[in-house]
């Protein structure tokens, strides 16, 4: 049995770790409320922009590089959204696992995936393995602002618009974690570019091809149909210029949405992980305390036995 001193110091260190986990858990739960407000605040803008794109799609046959890439190019971009900090359970590792399997799949289709990484954990994972990364973004995964979404969208759209000879890419996939609820977060792969035009009945709607998860997009399309025919808009200065202005913003707002849901998922999985860690620390403390008590009791018993037996021995000598 370990010495009482060792047990005591283990109990002490576990207690202080437990306090840290508990604090992290509380920080995470306060961040969730904030993440929710940020997401709610960004919603009107993304709604406005998808409405506008719907109107454009209903009005014209969209012919824009963002919707239809003409040249054939095996290079595709893969953007992985990971966390900046650890202590979030399997958050980053499940993103990386999904990214790896997507890269394999794309390789199998004869494509050349280019890697873009967001979040310090993912960056250090790939740097350590000496993988080529086209671009990285760090430091915003907790609170992704409009600015970082703009940065990412600008960089990726620039690479997308470049011709193949200059290192352009023909598709963009985003690997991110969808926030389902506090307990469930799912890793999703979304094909962001080219934006896909879906014709359903006589209504046309533009949705990002949802890969495995076209759920949000499907509801967008349903709404448009429920509204009936869109009003006949006039476009100023011209349809082409409006498309040029709005489609990049649409992509940016979709990327921002992904960042926000990823941030909420990160916070939620951090809270879950820290909750489990606090529970484990408490169990460990209980177990160690039990051991400590047992060992203290054993030593007391041993001392008593020694005292009694030595007293017996003395008595015997006197007789």
């Amino acid at each position, binding site marked *: 049995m370990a010495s009482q001193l060792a047990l005591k110091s283990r109990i002490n260190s576990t207690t202080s770790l437990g306090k840290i986990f508990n604090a992290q858990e509380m920080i995470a739960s306060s961040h969730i409320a904030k993440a929710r407000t940020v997401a709610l605040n960004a919603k009107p803008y993304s709604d406005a922009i998808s409405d*506008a794109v719907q109107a454009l799609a209903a009005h014209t046959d969209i012919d824009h590089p963002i919707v239809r890439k003409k040249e054939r190019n095996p290079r595709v971009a893969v953007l992985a959204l990971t966390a900046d900090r650890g202590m979030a359970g399997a958050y980053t590792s499940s993103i990386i696992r999904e990214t790896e399997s997507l890269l394999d799949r794309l390789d199998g289709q004869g494509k050349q995936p280019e890697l873009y990484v967001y979040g310090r954990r993912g960056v250090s994972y790939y740097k350590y393995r000496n993988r080529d990364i086209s671009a990285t973004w760090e430091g915003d995964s907790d609170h992704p602002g409009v600015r970082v979404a703009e940065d990412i969208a600008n960089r990726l759209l620039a690479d997308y618009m470049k011709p193949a000879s200059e290192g352009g890419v023909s598709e963009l996939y985003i690997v991110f974690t969808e926030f389902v609820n506090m307990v469930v977060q799912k890793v999703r792969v979304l094909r962001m570019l080219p934006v896909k035009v879906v014709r359903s009945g006589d209504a046309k709607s533009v949705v990002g091809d949802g890969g495995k998860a076209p759920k949000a997009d499907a509801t967008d399309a349903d709404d448009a149909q429920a509204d009936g025919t869109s*009003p006949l808009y006039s476009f100023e200065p011209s349809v082409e210029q409006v498309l040029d202005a709005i489609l990049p913003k649409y992509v940016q707002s979709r990327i921002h949405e992904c960042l926000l849901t990823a941030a909420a998922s990160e916070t939620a999985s951090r809270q879950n992980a820290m909750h489990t860690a606090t529970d484990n620390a408490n169990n460990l403390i209980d177990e160690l305390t039990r051991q400590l008590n047992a060992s203290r009791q054993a030593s007391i018993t041993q001392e008593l036995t020694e005292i009694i037996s030595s007293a017996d021995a003395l008595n015997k000598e006197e007789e």
Partner: protein
Amino acid sequence: MAGSQSSMQVNIVAADRPLWSGAARSVTIPASEGGMGILPDHEPILTVIKSGTVSAVDTEGKRHSFDVSDGFISFDSNRLTVAVQRGEEPKAGAAE
């Protein structure tokens, strides 16, 4: 002032937060081809705007101005949506 009964629903949103919404009598926007005023029951329109000042006059005649970056507006069924990348209230005392 006349025409207080005619108004339109206005929604001004920036990418990170909604800026203002309410009923307005008129709105001026910095359209890409120059300033543009929008009154209730305008025809449906979708236009690109450049950075500048968006200002809306609400039904009480009070003016709400915002400095905005580029974006777009859409108007249909008497509902105006102004969506901009960034926008903020101008500093107090600034001329609109």
